[in-house]
């Protein structure tokens, strides 16, 4: 299999993990002196606050070690969180490589070209191992660079050890994903079963960390094995044996997956449910929702939309519950407490606004990017051609896409808003309902801004639309985050879509920003309509 094809198959994970890993580590390590202060005393006070905060979050992240240093902070904030992220990436990549490519007929096609099943699985696994090693290395390099910017260079040996442990965790998760995917017959079930397995392993490690009793089989948890290493933190250790065990887990899972892959039928899993005898159907579906413009798209993607809505609601609930902890943390950290004094209004309300809106913006932006990804895929897969074979104008397809996205973002945002309004009083947080409504409503033009740019890109060059839009989103976020830190001029800050959204929960609606977003939406979708009308479909 040519490397270019393999790269293409893993492109979404590659782009997302590269962007996120590098950016997240770089910002968190480089910004350490800004949040912890530059004096030893302030950093120690910051470290103490993080230790207290870390105890609260011990169910989620390992206990921080020397968080008064940039290395210790990076270990806790970066690599502690990456355990979840990279394990999920490994799992979903494996499920996609087996089940999704099988659903698309790619596996059958490759096997018919003469490649053996074992060789196919080895090729896919080796490629992922190399790809994940590259991304883990780049992430480590970004951490090293960030700490260098912060003025406290990292111990390279420790960084290499921690990177090795992270890589081992990633390929162990990939191996488990391969194994689970052999058992069932479709991507959704494989991803759900694999996720359940990872959550179980995470809980085993979490229980062991946050209580005096260790749950049985904790040693088998890939998260437990990974968390034995904390080599980036000063005085931390690299658990070579645990890392080797992770690699062995990955290899053993791969071997079992290979045996399963060789034995099973393509298109089926090892666990086969006997389908019930059902009468043949010779009629069109009576579901009226499938025939109504806009509603039909919403109905077809109802499960995805529901997942996004639930995910956003859970995030909203988590943010509300985190506000008091965060407020306490800020108040007890000398370098951060001045920020509280400078905030306009009630501390809890402001923190809710800042934390929630940053999450909400990120989520709806990512949702818009996934929609653009589907629009691009519809073009290459022939779905758009089938839609256009019906008496439907191209601008009609574009309008349906935009309205469908608008409805889904509205649903996601307002359900999350309802959750916040329901939970906030119990946490003692006062929320201005009017401002909550306006800030929630503003998420719609915010998402549409990304969608409009994406629609234009998808209409012009579908194959590069997602990469380009993701780059625009990341740069936009960087401008938003770094602009105030480096005191960039207002016009430069306003190049960021995140900046155009403003902070409507605590300040009046940024009318100029709203007008700019609406202008981008109109121009973007308008141009997309012109470009799509002129372009050859699927060419």
């Amino acid at each position, binding site marked *: 299999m040519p490397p270019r094809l393999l790269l293409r198959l893993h492109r979404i994970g590659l782009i997302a993990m590269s962007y996120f890993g590098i950016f997240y580590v770089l910002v968190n390590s480089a910004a350490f002196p800004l949040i912890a202060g530059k004096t030893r005393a302030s950093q120690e006070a910051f470290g103490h606050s993080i230790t207290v905060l870390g105890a609260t979050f011990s169910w989620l992240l390992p206990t921080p070690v020397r968080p008064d240093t940039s290395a210790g902070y990076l270990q806790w904030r970066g690599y502690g969180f990456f355990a979840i992220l990279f394990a999920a990436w490994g799992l979903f990549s494996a499920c996609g490589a087996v089940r999704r490519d099988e659903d698309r007929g790619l596996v059958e096609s490759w096997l018919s070209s003469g490649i053996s099943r074992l060789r196919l699985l080895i090729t896919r696994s080796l490629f992922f191992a190399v790809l994940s090693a590259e991304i883990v290395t780049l992430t480590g390099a970004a951490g090293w660079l960030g700490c260098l910017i912060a003025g406290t260079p990292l111990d390279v040996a420790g960084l290499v050890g921690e990177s090795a442990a992270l890589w081992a965790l990633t390929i162990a998760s990939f191996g488990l994903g391969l194994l689970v995917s052999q058992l069932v017959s479709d991507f959704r079930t494989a991803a759900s079963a694999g996720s359940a397995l990872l959550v179980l392993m995470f809980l085993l490690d979490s229980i062991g960390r946050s209580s005096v009793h260790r749950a049985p089989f904790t040693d088998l948890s890939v998260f437990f094995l990974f968390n034995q290493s904390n080599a980036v933190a000063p005085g931390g250790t690299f658990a070579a044996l645990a890392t080797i065990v992770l690699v062995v887990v990955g290899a053993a899972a791969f071997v079992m997956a290979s045996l399963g892959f060789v034995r099973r039928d393509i298109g089926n899993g090892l666990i086969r449910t006997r389908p019930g005898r059902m009468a043949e159907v*010779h009629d069109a579906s009576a579901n009226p929702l*499938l025939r109504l413009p806009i509603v039909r798209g919403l109905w077809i993607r109802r499960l995805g939309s529901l997942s996004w809505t639930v995910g956003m609601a859970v995030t909203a609930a988590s943010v509300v519950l985190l506000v008091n902890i965060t407020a306490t943390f800020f108040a007890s950290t000398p370098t951060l407490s001045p920020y509280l004094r400078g905030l306009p209004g009630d501390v809890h309300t402001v923190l809710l606004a800042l934390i929630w809106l940053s999450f909400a913006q990120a989520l709806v932006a990512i949702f818009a990017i996934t929609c653009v990804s589907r629009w691009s895929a519809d073009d290459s*897969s022939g779905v758009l051609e089938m839609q256009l074979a019906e008496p439907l104008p191209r601008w009609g397809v574009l309008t349906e896409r935009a309205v469908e996205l608008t409805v889904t973002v509205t649903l996601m945002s307002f359900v999350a808003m309802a959750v916040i309004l329901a939970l906030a009083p119990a946490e003692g947080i006062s929320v201005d309902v009017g401002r909550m409504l306006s800030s929630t409503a503003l998420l719609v033009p915010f998402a549409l801004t990304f969608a409009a740019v994406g629609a234009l890109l998808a209409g012009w060059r579908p194959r590069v639309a997602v990469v380009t839009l993701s780059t625009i989103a990341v740069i936009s976020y960087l401008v938003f985050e770094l602009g105030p830190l480096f005191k960039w001029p207002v016009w430069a800050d306003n190049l960021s879509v995140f900046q155009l959204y403003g902070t409507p929960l605590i300040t009046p609606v940024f009318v100029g920003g709203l007008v700019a977003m609406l202008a981008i939406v109109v121009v973007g979708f308008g141009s997309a309509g012109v470009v799509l009308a002129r372009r050859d479909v699927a060419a």
Partner: protein
Amino acid sequence: MTSAIVMHGLTKDYGSGHGLFDLDLEVAEGEVFGFLGPNGAGKTTTIRLLMGVIHASAGAAAVFGLDCDRESVAVKREVGYLPGELPQFGGMRGSEVVSYLGGMRGGIDRSRVKELSERLELDLGRRFREYSRGNKQKLGLVLAFMHSPRLLILDEPTSGLDPLNQQTFQRLVGEATAAGGTVFLSSHVLSEVEETCSRVGIIREGRLVSDMTMDKVHELRFHEVVIEFGGDVPDAAVRRAAGVADVSVEGSRLTCTVHDGFDGLLSAISGSRVVDMVSREPSLESIFLSYYRT
């Protein structure tokens, strides 16, 4: 008789000599027109130009007097379309795909869907991803025929169908034309076109090289025959036989082509001992080569 399809100088230039060049073609209403050509000849490009999915580099095409590019929405109200390959509809059931795409047309004749799916023996209750290649093709045919369009544009319609369903398809085409419909179908299998069409166009390397009635096509048809003799090879008699050409002998094996029936060949070999005899229909490419040689 009015024209269902008119193409004037229709060109789609993909560069490097690929595409479709200067196509002039007219298909009358009620006709079943077969568009023949080997893979990559430009058949699908022509069909996609008619459907307004791609834009012409030069020239124009019209369906029932409507410009395929500028008035493509109106064109598609009159057309039932089967693409060369259906896209992946994943977990959607066949019945849902029918409803979804039918809904875009403004409505579905459910009795027609029932009739078509029963005749093609297609279970619409199954998920698209569970369909075999043949069943996907049947679903495509249901989608194309279900609104009884005035014009059917079908890209390799029998691809993946078993012989019984091929016959059903031929009957459906016959019924469509009997009801006044027009059919434009592409194929690279001559025998399939022979069964269905009243006229064919042959395209090669993006250019229409022939536009002929089925009578002319029958003249083009020939068989490649290989005969293994048990004794002397009667090659001189075979070479003199009516309708026999391209005779070559290798040991006890004689190879030739036979046009217009086997009587001449059978008379020539009647006194010889024949051990084995194989007759096969040549590929379209072979017919082209033969056609252009003569």
